[in-house]
């Protein structure tokens, strides 16, 4: 059975944050005709044609600046990273390889793809969610204590 941690549950900030993410994806597709998929946007900066880079870089700069503005105007929400450096490196490599090989991540497949009702993105989302659940299960309940 699943035990819900009601203390940690933050429905309103989660929902409001989700709506902001949705509005951003909506703005990008309706105004620029592009998918707000972060791995794809970053991958395109690394390897895509030069003429297609400006909007990608502008988007990524916006993301990088967001915490600074948030910190200046309100407060910066907690960012806790408990994984050690070797684990972080392995995780980063897997995420980089996997998102390019599978053509998308949580934003491209999970948010935009599911919003487009794309069967491809549904399969991808089920696959990465399952792998995420299994990995955390193995780390926390089989290997770790």
């Amino acid at each position: 059975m699943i035990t819900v941690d009601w203390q940690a549950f933050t429905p309103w900030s989660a929902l409001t944050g989700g709506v902001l993410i949705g509005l951003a994806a909506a703005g990008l597709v309706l105004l620029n005709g592009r998918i707000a998929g972060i791995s794809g946007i970053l991958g395109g900066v690394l390897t895509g044609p030069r003429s297609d880079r400006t909007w990608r870089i502008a988007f990524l700069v916006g993301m990088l600046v967001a915490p600074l503005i948030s910190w200046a105007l309100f407060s910066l929400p907690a960012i806790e990273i408990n994984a050690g450096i070797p684990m972080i490196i392995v995780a980063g490599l897997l995420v980089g390889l996997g998102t390019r090989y599978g053509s998308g991540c949580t934003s491209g497949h999970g948010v935009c793809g599911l919003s487009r009702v794309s069967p491809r993105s549904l399969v991808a989302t089920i696959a990465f969610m399952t792998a995420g659940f299994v990995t955390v299960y193995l780390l926390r309940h089989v290997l770790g204590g």
Partner: protein
Amino acid sequence: MDTKKETFVSFIVGLVFGFGLLLSGMANPEKVLGFLDLAGDWDPSLALVMAGAIAIGLVAFTIAGKRSYTLLGKEMNLPSGQHIDRRLVVGSLTFGAGWGLAGFCPGPALVAVGAGEIKAIVFVVAMIAGMTIFEFIERARNRA
């Protein structure tokens, strides 16, 4: 080339996306792992992040799907792939395993870099290395 308007739109949209990730808790790996840990004390918050985002996204992409041009008058650039193949599944499984190891996916990791987190910088460097390795493998395969 992008028009200045489109570049500005991209920046603002990236900013809003970043705020959304911060506010929702997606940019906090501990929160993400709390969601992925079904067998522990489960934090269902992130399901609501997806619900909120998709509720808006469904409307936007329905409108976008009916248009050939954007509101700024350029051609729509939506993915056309329909194939469900091994690449899609194996790639997504690989991504999910990495996501579960550290609690970071690409967007939140970039936002955490902006917040000055050293571990996030290490993660993003490794992620870009992973993307570059993918590119090398692809090129080698295409040459063969």
